[in-house]
Each structure stands twice: as structure tokens, then as C-alpha cells.
């Protein structure tokens, strides 16, 4: 079992986005819409295993806050686009843009508390 190592906030955030993409994939697999289109969906348990593995690699405190946010909102990590948090659509103070852009720390939206991720301008 791999234990989480100290990694950069940028890497933490990337792992978190991977986790969120994966959580969505698992959710959508269980509603079987794709099956109706002719795709074989047979590896849900494999994805759940991969999810456990991925979660173990994430810094525990960050993982906890991700999971807490996920219970509250549909997505815990949201993009910032044109200076707006795409979770609550409130403007993110300009003073914080650089910190979010550089991903030197993991920042949350002051308004809704979601974890912010910069997707380019």
C-alpha cells in the first residue's frame, strides 16, 4: 500500500482533478446510459479499485476536504474562468488570481468554499 508522499500543491490539485473525473465516470457508469448505446460496461469494480489507489496518493487533509465538499456540491473542484468561480459564479478577487494560476497553494473560493483550479485564460 502506497502512502501519500509530500508533493507540490500543483500535483495535489492534479490528483484531485483526476479523482473527480474518476468519481464522475463511476457515477455515470452505474446509470448505464452508455450501455444503451452499445458500449460494454464491465469494469466498474476495476475503477473502484483505481479510485482507492488514487485516493491513497492524495494528501489526507485535502482528500477529506474534497470528500466533504462533494457531499455538499456536485463538484468539489471547479475551474476559475475569466476571474469567476464556475461553482458559484462569484468573482474571485484579482489579488488571488496569481496564487490560483501558479497553483503554489491550493485555494478555495471565498464565497462557496469549492477548491479552485485555473484552466488558462
Amino acid at each position, binding site marked *: 500500500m502506497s502512502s501519500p508522499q509530500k508533493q507540490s500543491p500543483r500535483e495535489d490539485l492534479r490528483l484531485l482533478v483526476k479523482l473527480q473525473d474518476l468519481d464522475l465516470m463511476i457515477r455515470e457508469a452505474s446509470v448505464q446510459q452508455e450501455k444503451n448505446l452499445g*458500449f460494454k460496461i464491465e469494469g466498474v469494480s476495476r475503477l473502484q479499485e483505481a479510485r482507492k489507489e488514487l485516493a491513497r496518493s492524495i494528501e489526507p487533509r485535502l482528500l477529506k476536504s474534497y470528500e466533504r465538499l462533494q457531499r455538499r456540491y456536485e463538484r468539489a473542484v471547479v475551474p476559475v474562468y475569466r476571474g469567476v468561480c464556475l461553482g458559484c459564479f462569484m468573482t474571485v478577487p484579482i489579488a488571488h488570481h496569481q496564487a490560483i494560476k501558479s497553483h503554489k497553494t491550493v485555494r478555495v473560493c471565498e464565497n462557496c468554499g469549492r477548491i479552485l483550479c485555473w484552466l488558462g485564460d
Partner: protein
Amino acid sequence: MGRPMTNREFLALFEKELYIPELDAGNKQEVLEEFVELLHREERVFDKDIVLDMLLKRENLGSTALGNGLAIPHGRTLTTRKLVVAFGKCTQGLDFDAPDGKPVHLFFLIIAPYREKQDQYLPTLGKIAEFFRKKRLREKVLQVSNFEEFVDVLSSEAESA
């Protein structure tokens, strides 16, 4: 799953920049890498590694090859802003764990954000699967040599449908 998609909307999804006349890839992973590389170069996705990881996990769920030489790798990710569709051809054919065991020649890659205003993700998937159920169309697309011909073939198919 979103409203049905018109043929016009369907055709409008294809872009010259996201058309690969002949894939260089030699295996499943390389196909996905080649597409993701292109999407990143064209600034449609913001993190190659996250997108590739997502696509590989999706293949783990079950191959996105549908049989008859067609595959539609797809998935949703936070790292894109709008739905994108890329096309790539492999004349020689490539093993993609298809249900019928046949090599895949035609690849459509779909990347979508979590939820769009009009969620066209599943309708797009459905439309490609439906269109390419026709053997005649698959054979025609296999013969095209550039994007304009590709769109012509799809347009005339849409008109006759």
C-alpha cells in the same frame, strides 16, 4: 440524456484542426496519446496527463471499440471547456480490444466538460454510433484523404438519412 441532435448540429462538431488523416500510433495507448497531444496543441484541453489518465480509465471500464472497425474513446473531464470531437483514421487497422476482435480503422474521440448548457455529450456519442452502423458509410470514410472529403461523405449521408 439531452435532446436528440440534428444532423446539422452533428456535422458542425467536426473541425479541420482535429482531423488526423492517418494515425501514427501502433497500439491502443499510443492512439489515445496521439489524440490528446493534438487536443492539447490546439488548446482544447488544459492538462494532457489528466485527460490521458481519464481516457485510459474509461478503457478499463470496457473498450470503447464498438466492433466493425469503429471505436469512440470518450469521457468527461474538468480540464476542457467545451465538447470536442476529433477524428483519426488507421488504414492498416489497430487492435483496440473490440468486442468482435476485429482491428479498428475509424476513431472518433469525444471529450466533454462535466455538464454543458445543452448537454450534447451522449447525443454525440449516440449519433456517431448510429451513423457508422452502416457498412457503406464506414467504407466510404475509409477512402477519404482529407477533411473536406470527410465532411462531404458525412454531409451526403446526413442528407440521404
